[in-house]
C-alpha cells in the first residue's frame, strides 16, 4: 500500500553517497529516496552509519573535522552540497532533534523564539509570540507550559524537554525534520507521546528518524531503510521490511540474530 504512495513526490534524494571520517569510510554508495510527508526510519546496528547519513541531510557533519562527503544529496532537486548552498539556510530548512533533549539553558519561550528571531521571521513581539504559541501547540506542549513560559526549559521533564526541542525545530518552519534517536532517553509514556506527535507532524513535514528501537520504526514510519556496516542494505515499505525483508541481513537484524 505505501509503495504506491511513494511515487507521490521525492523530497530528498541521495545518490552514491560516500562519507569518510579521515581515512575511515563510514558510508559507501548510499542511494536513498526520501518521500515527502512521510516518515522514513533509518535502522541498523550501532556504528552502521545511519546517524552519519542523517547528519549528511543538514550538513551537520560539516562541523566534524576530517569529515568528507562524496556523491550527491538533493532536496527538491537542488544539491545541498553545492557551492551556492548556504549551510545556515539549509539548516533552517532541515531541522534536527537530537538523542538527548538539549534545550538551551534559557526560558521555554526563549528556546522556541530563538530560531525565528535569528532568522528575522517575526516583525514584532506579537508575531513572535504567535510563532512561539503555534509551535508549542503543534508540539503538543502548550497545555503543559502555558502558565510558565518564563520557566527555564531545563526545568521540564525529559519528554517535555524533547517536545520543546521539537517545538524549537518547527518554529523556524523547516521542510524536513531529522530526528536522531529522539526517544532513547525517554520512558515509554513520553516515547508514546513523541511517536504520536511524529505521526501528526507528518502532514506538514518530511520526517527522517534514526532509531534503535525496531518496534518504534515499525510504529511511526512508512518507509524503512536498513543500514549495515556503512551500506544501505535494504529499503522498502515499513510493512514489508518487518514482515518479509528481502535481504538475509535485514532478516537477521530485525529478528534479533545480528546486532
Amino acid at each position, binding site marked *: 500500500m505505501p509503495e504506491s504512495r511513494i511515487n507521490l513526490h521525492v523530497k530528498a534524494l541521495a545518490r552514491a553517497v560516500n562519507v569518510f571520517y579521515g581515512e575511515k569510510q563510514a558510508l559507501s554508495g548510499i542511494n536513498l529516496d526520501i518521500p515527502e510527508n512521510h516518515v522514513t526510519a533509518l535502522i541498523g546496528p550501532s556504528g552502521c552509519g545511519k546517524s552519519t547519513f542523517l547528519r549528511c541531510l543538514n550538513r551537520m557533519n560539516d562541523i566534524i573535522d576530517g569529515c568528507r562527503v562524496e556523491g550527491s544529496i538533493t532536496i527538491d532537486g537542488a544539491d545541498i552540497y553545492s557551492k551556492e548552498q548556504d549551510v545556515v539556510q539549509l539548516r533552517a530548512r532541515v531541522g534536527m532533534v537530537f538523542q538527548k533533549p538539549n534545550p538551551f539553558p534559557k526560558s521555554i519561550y526563549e528556546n522556541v523564539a530563538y530560531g525565528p528571531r535569528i532568522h528575522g521571521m517575526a516583525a514584532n513581539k506579537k508575531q513572535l509570540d504567535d510563532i512561539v504559541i503555534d509551535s508549542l501547540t503543534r508540539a503538543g506542549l502548550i497545555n503543559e507550559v502555558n502558565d510558565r513560559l518564563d520557566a527555564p526549559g531545563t526545568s521540564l521533564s525529559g519528554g517535555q524537554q524533547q517536545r520543546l526541542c521539537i517545538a524549537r525545530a518547527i518554529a523556524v518552519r523547516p521542510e524536513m525534520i531529522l530526528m536522531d534517536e529522539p526517544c532513547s532517553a525517554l520512558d515509554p509514556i513520553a516515547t508514546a507521546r513523541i511517536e504520536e506527535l511524529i505521526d501528526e507532524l507528518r502532514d506538514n513535514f518530511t520526517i527522517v528518524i534514526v532509531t534503535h528501537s525496531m518496534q518504534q520504526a515499525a510504529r511511526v514510519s512508512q518507509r524503512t531503510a536498513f543500514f549495515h556496516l556503512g551500506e544501505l542494505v535494504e529499503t522498502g515499505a515499513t510493512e514489508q521490511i518487518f514482515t*518479509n525483508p528481502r535481504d*538475509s541481513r*535485514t*532478516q537477521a537484524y530485525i*529478528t*534479533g*540474530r545480528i546486532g
Partner: protein
Amino acid sequence: MVSGHIVKSFDDDLNHLVSTISEMAGLAERQLADSISAMSRRDEQLAANVIEQDKRLDDLEADIDAQVVRMLALRQPQALDLRAVLVALKISSDLERVGDYAKNVAKRTLTLMQAPVIGQATSTIVRMGSIVGGMISNVVDAYLNADVVKAQEVRARDLDVDQLHSSLFRELLTYMMEDPRNITACTHLLFIAKNIERIGDHVTNIAENVHFLVAGENIAGDRPKNDLSSSTIITVGDKTA
C-alpha cells in the same frame, strides 16, 4: 532456520514449537493409518483406540496455542520468526482437523462392521489413505527442512487423491443403484472417502503454509483441483459414466 538468535532462549522457544508440531504431525499420521487399517481389517479394538487417541491431538493443539500466545507477547517476533509462529498456529489447527477426520473414519468403521463388504471400495480407500499418509510425512519433512520444492510436490499430490475420490464416488453410486441393501455401507464408505479427501486438503493447506513460512508470501496460482464428485451424476442404467 537462519543462524541463532542473540537471545538464545528465543531459539529454544522456537525449537520447542517446531518439535511439538512434528510430534503432532507424527501422531496425526499414525491416527490416519490406524483408522484405515482398522477399517480394512475390521479391527474393532484398533478403531476404538483411534477414537481414544484423538484427545491427545487436541491437547497438543492447545499446547501450541499457548506457546504461540506466549511468544507473541514476550518475544515480539518479526519477519521470519513472526511467520514461524503464525504458521505453527495454522498447521496445528490443520493437524487437529486431520485427527478429527481420522476419528470419524474410526467411528464409521465400527458401524461398517455390521454391514457387508462392498467390492473393491475398501482397497481404493486404503490407496487414498496411503497417499495422504505419505503427503503428511512429506509435508512434515518440508516443514522441518524449509523445503519449498517438497511442499509443492505435496500440493500436487493432492490431485491423485481427488482423482481417486471422484472415481470411488462413481463406483459407490453404482453399487447403491445395483442393490439398495448396499446403501448403508456405501454411504459410510462415501463419508470415509470424503474424510480422507478432506485430510488431503488440510495437508495441502499445510504445504501452502510451509511455502509462506519459507518464501514470505503466498504460493502463486490456484490450488490444483481434480475432485469431480460434486458434479458427478449417475442415472439408472448408465454404467459407462
